[in-house]
């Protein structure tokens, strides 16, 4: 082997753990191959052309994630992370949070996409 081939062999040794790491990620994902999209969670909700609010009972980074997933799924409508607008999209961990929010803010459910996801409107 010449010098270049030795360098190439060393590069192969260095690249191998990286490729094996990539392969290992496949085995971390449990279960069958199922497609998961934010669009599915918000399917069926449609917003008019106005600013709408967003509510979640999740905290910290999970609240941010749910908010941006809702903004992504419902784009180009602009969602704001507050619940004092005429229309509010709720995406909650505990479905009871929707009923509590409705009672507190005088909202009612317009449409439910799933037990934890709904479009709410001011009474």
């Amino acid at each position: 082997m010449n010098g270049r081939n030795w360098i190439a062999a060393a590069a192969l040794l260095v690249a191998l753990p990286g490729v094996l790491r990539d392969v290992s990620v496949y085995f971390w994902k449990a279960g069958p191959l199922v497609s998961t999209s934010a669009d599915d969670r918000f399917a069926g909700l449609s917003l008019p052309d106005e600013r709408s609010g967003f509510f979640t009972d999740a905290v910290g980074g999970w609240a941010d994630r749910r908010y941006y997933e809702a903004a992504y799924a419902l784009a180009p409508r602009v969602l704001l992370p507050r619940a004092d607008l005429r229309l509010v999209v709720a995406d909650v961990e505990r479905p009871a949070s929707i009923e509590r929010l409705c009672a507190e803010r005088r909202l009612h459910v317009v449409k439910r996409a799933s037990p934890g996801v709904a479009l709410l409107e001011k009474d």
Partner: protein
Amino acid sequence: MIALAALAALAGGITVLRAAGARGPFALAAGAVVGLGLSGMLWSAGLLLLGATGAGSDLMMLLGAAAIWWRFRGGRDEEELGEEKNNFFSAARAPPWLVAACALAALVVTALFLEHSLRYPDGGWDAVAIWNLRARALFGAPHRLADVFTNELPRQHPDYPLLLPGLIAHGWFALGTRTALVPIAVSLLFAAAGAAALGFAVRDRRGPALGLAAALLLLGTPQFLLLAWNQYADLKLAMLLLVAVVLASGGRFFGAGLVAGLCAYTKNEGLLECALLLLAVLLVSGCRAAVEMLLGAALPLALLAYFKVRWAPPNDLVSRTVVGDLVRRVPGRVFVVGHGFGAQFIDFGTWGLAPPFVALCWIARWRRRKRTLSSLFLALAIGAVFAIYLATPNDPVEQMKTSLDRLLFQLWPSIIYSTAIALAPAAAPAGAAPPRSAADPA
């Protein structure tokens, strides 16, 4: 319409690369990378300036490609970058075990990309919160740009430039529907064409064995697959920057400027990288070369300036940075930021062993290294990234946790290229004359 968009991107990119002196497989692979970038830039220019969302940008690109082809047909043969007939490595062959290893790695990485993209078609967090969200807004409300660039969604970074969202939205308009296939295909094309461009760029100057080794090193970097399947802009920027560095290294400054301008129009960091490449060109090749590069970058930089002045709110990091605070906080952060860089060096992008390997190559061959434009640019760029974390108004530890690996990855393909060029000897078979360029002799 999607066929027209794809044809325009490919023809436009390859024609620009050939006009810049590139030939052979490198021109094809790098042309695909540049063509995608040009397509995103021109479409978003049409939208921002004229409110156009149709195939006009594709037709313009095809006409431009035809005009460039007509202007440069048959010329510059003796100067061509990476041309087969002038390349004394064209007769050399890579060992079969290396070809097999590279093909297997490419196959595994592609299969994993497709599996993950089927499982999570929306991509990762930044794709959902920034790039694809912006693309959806452009597609859904192209004539309400005030809503698209609203600063009511701060995590969306409304000041980020439009190359990637524009490219994705263009794909959706061309198809007539909003499908996850477009951002997935864009990510796959940038990754595949970029890896191929790296391999061919190194092959053209240092032979097929090192070309394959360079591609293998990139494929074996976990961050490469991670950023590809997460549909992040960092991978697109990394590939465009690689092409700009290769062109600048070959003395093709106008082409390098155009592609560096596309980098600036991809992410805010791209503007810094464009400026540093310009500085490296100025220092190594002089004023005339720098002016040539600046002229090449003029169109994307002008569009970026228009976007920033007319539509984008101020960048949050810049607007919160005060010079007085900088002087106070920078000295106390040197160790913390150095520690963050050290951690990336040891474990780049999780399980990445390549940086220590690259560093070892530099140490072992320090005395025989060639002083190249690309290595000067990378030294400047790594220094600039270090300075960003010294200066940030945020907690540098937290910011490094979420961004340092991506910022370093933006430079990674160029680091691999520069390492191969600067450290491996360009020794030709007996009697062959090595190719030369103004920027990187031999």
